């Protein structure tokens, strides 16, 4: 079942025609990997799908409803991770998760600890976010994606700043998400070692 | 005529107002036409650029 469908997306950034009539459809349990050179419009496409950037033409449909007609229903099933990690430097990892994912779901401390453990972040770590390395911040941001327990993941360069073990960890998280029947659109250059039937690719030029 | 021009002694307030009004009216016309012309040139360049690009590919 195709839950996420985009049709005939047209987008200009300034004088640049970034998306030229792009269409895509993502199946349940599938991951769409978006690749392309820098400036090909990977981020723009993800922002259009998330509803952050209105396309000039075309539509994005979630469960066969235009996302612009009912953005709240769509967004309540969406976990978004953009370039910014949206972590507050003056809060610890757990506080950050409690006040970001916790805006949308009731979280218990054990749920937060479990998510931090899954992204390989020592849960005894009490450091503030600004004292963490960029890779550790990414891990905490991924923990937020897990905690939101959303059907659709839209991730823009989720593995930037992650070391090799971090990239393996991300693949495992993604597989588990797809196993549960989730969907994902991921913009990344890193090859995703997923089974062929659950990996679609889209190369932007 | 001179009597009309002097406007009962108010000429030094009246005529500058009318002059300035004329200036604003004329300048607005000038700027509007200029900006429309520039936009046309810009559009022309863009159209030709797109045509050239299509010709190459």
């Amino acid at each position: 079942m195709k839950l996420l469908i985009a049709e005939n997306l047209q987008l200009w950034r300034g004088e640049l025609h970034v998306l030229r009539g792009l269409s895509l459809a993502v199946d349940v349990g599938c991951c769409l990997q978006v690749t392309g050179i820098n400036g090909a419009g990977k981020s723009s496409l993800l922002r259009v799908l998330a509803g952050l950037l209105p396309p000039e033409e075309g539509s994005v449909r979630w469960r066969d409803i235009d996302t612009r007609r009912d953005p709240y229903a769509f967004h309540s099933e969406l976990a978004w991770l953009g370039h910014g990690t949206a972590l507050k430097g003056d809060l610890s990892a757990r506080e950050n998760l409690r006040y970001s994912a916790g805006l949308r779901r009731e979280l218990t401390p054990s749920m937060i600890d479990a998510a931090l453990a899954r992204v390989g972040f020592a849960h005894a770590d009490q450091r503030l976010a600004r004292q963490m390395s960029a890779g550790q911040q990414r891990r905490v941001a991924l923990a937020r994606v897990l905690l939101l327990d959303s059907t659709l993941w839209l991730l823009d360069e989720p593995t930037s700043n992650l070391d090799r073990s971090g990239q393996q960890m991300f693949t495992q998280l993604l597989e588990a998400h797809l196993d549960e029947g989730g969907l994902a659109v991921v913009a990344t250059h890193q090859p995703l070692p997923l089974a062929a039937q659950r990996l679609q690719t889209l190369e932007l030029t | 005529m001179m009597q009309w021009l002097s406007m009962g002694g108010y000429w030094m307030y009246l005529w500058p107002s009318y002059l300035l009004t004329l200036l604003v009216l004329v300048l607005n016309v000038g700027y509007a036409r200029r900006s429309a012309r520039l936009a046309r040139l810009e559009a022309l360049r863009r159209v030709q650029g797109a045509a050239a690009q299509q010709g190459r590919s």
Partner: protein
Amino acid sequence: MKPPATGVVSPGKAGWRLVQRDLRLGLRRPGEWLQPLVFFLVVTTLFPLATSPELSRLRDMAPGALWVAALLSSLLALELLFREDGQDGTLEQLAVSGLPLPWLLLAKTCVHWLMTGLPLVLAGPLVATALGAPYASIPGVFAALLLGSGALSLIGAVGAALTLGLHRGGVLLALLVLPLAVPVLIFGARATSLAIAQDPMTAPMYLLGAIAVLSATLAPLAAAAAVRISLE
């Protein structure tokens, strides 16, 4: 297919959590939100220095000095409202959270007012007495600043959202917000001068209250639209 997420939080509760988060962040960085207060005190100190130390003359100027200083100080504080959240991606997360964005921004603006507006409201009456206002005028000055500073924060939120991420944001923000703040300034200063003169101040207070209510209903909607546009 994946079952829907459990334990969904209501918008009201989400707003409350956002308030808690911003309060906690503010308390960890007191320097940031104390600066507008210090600015307010410095500016109001400059007025006697620039004119005369005679209390009778200062008393006439006190409402104007108080409100112009409060307006400038709240303008200065607006930089803190959305800038960091815009840069680190927090606003993006709020915009796609499936929660009503105007409501979340109203929550953020309320915290912003608590941290930067409320100190002015508390310090304002003291400054007024230093400028020659009688002690009996303290409640009146306090009430006028209470309503006025709330309205200023709300109106300012729209300007801050519009200039989010712009290079020349600071000066532009002043140019956008100050003309819109004219009614608040007029009614606020009038209420204050009536309070200082010990006259009934109902008329300007009603008008100030009307502006505050109107801003509280419309400003979050405009700010949410502006934030979405700024995130594009």
